[in-house]
């Protein structure tokens, strides 16, 4: 199913047009896009930047599994899942998911499924940097 999926992890800036152009097709009536952006605060504390790192070969495999499962589970045409690694500033884009389908409901549902599953299974971590220190998100030593 890889011709209908585009999976990428990069330290370059993510490209919304690339994701859009990959999924768009004459047979589709709509495209759903999820764009993750770096928020300026966590629990009212100002965030300076986020540093993303991943177990890249395994993360690519897990992202591919999500895309393949989305194609099986929902009536969609194509899906693109791209994730950035490295230091990202406020407003930068760590993740883009694009899904095309003949009818909009499947695209919305597959897009939500993909980002929810990515946040549970894909081995990528972010460290939040504040004025006075840094912390790994989701981890409590």
């Amino acid at each position, binding site marked *: 199913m890889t011709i209908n999926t585009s999976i990428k992890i990069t330290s370059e800036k993510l490209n919304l047009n690339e994701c859009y152009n990959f999924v768009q097709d004459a047979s589709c009536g709509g495209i759903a896009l999820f764009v993750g952006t770096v928020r300026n605060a966590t629990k009212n504390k100002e965030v300076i930047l986020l540093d993303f*790192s991943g177990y890249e070969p395994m993360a690519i495999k897990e992202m591919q599994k999500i895309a393949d499962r989305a194609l099986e589970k929902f009536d969609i045409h194509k899906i693109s899942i791209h*994730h950035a690694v490295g230091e990202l500033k406020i407003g930068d884009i760590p993740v883009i998911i694009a899904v095309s389908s003949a009818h909009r409901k499947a695209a919305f549902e597959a897009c939500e499924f993909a980002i929810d599953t*990515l946040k549970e299974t894909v*081995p*990528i*971590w972010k460290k939040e940097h504040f004025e006075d220190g840094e912390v790994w*998100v*989701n981890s409590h*030593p």
Partner: protein
Amino acid sequence: MEIQLLFFGIATDLVGKNTMLYKIEENSTIIELKKSLISNFSGLKNINEFAIAVNEEYADDDLIITHRDVVAIIPPVSGG
């Protein structure tokens, strides 16, 4: 036998390395490896809350590790 360990996220900070060669008994399971790591690295006392991957696939506690497997310590992920 010897395996390669990989540490990610907070596990890297807790151990002070991102990779090392590690000796365990033949036919050890994931749960036995976790016990061994807890006794050798006090920082990994919460490793039971972490996932483990063997050769880039998530592994259950009863999986038997084999010589030269690459075993990754996967703290709670936070991508997206």
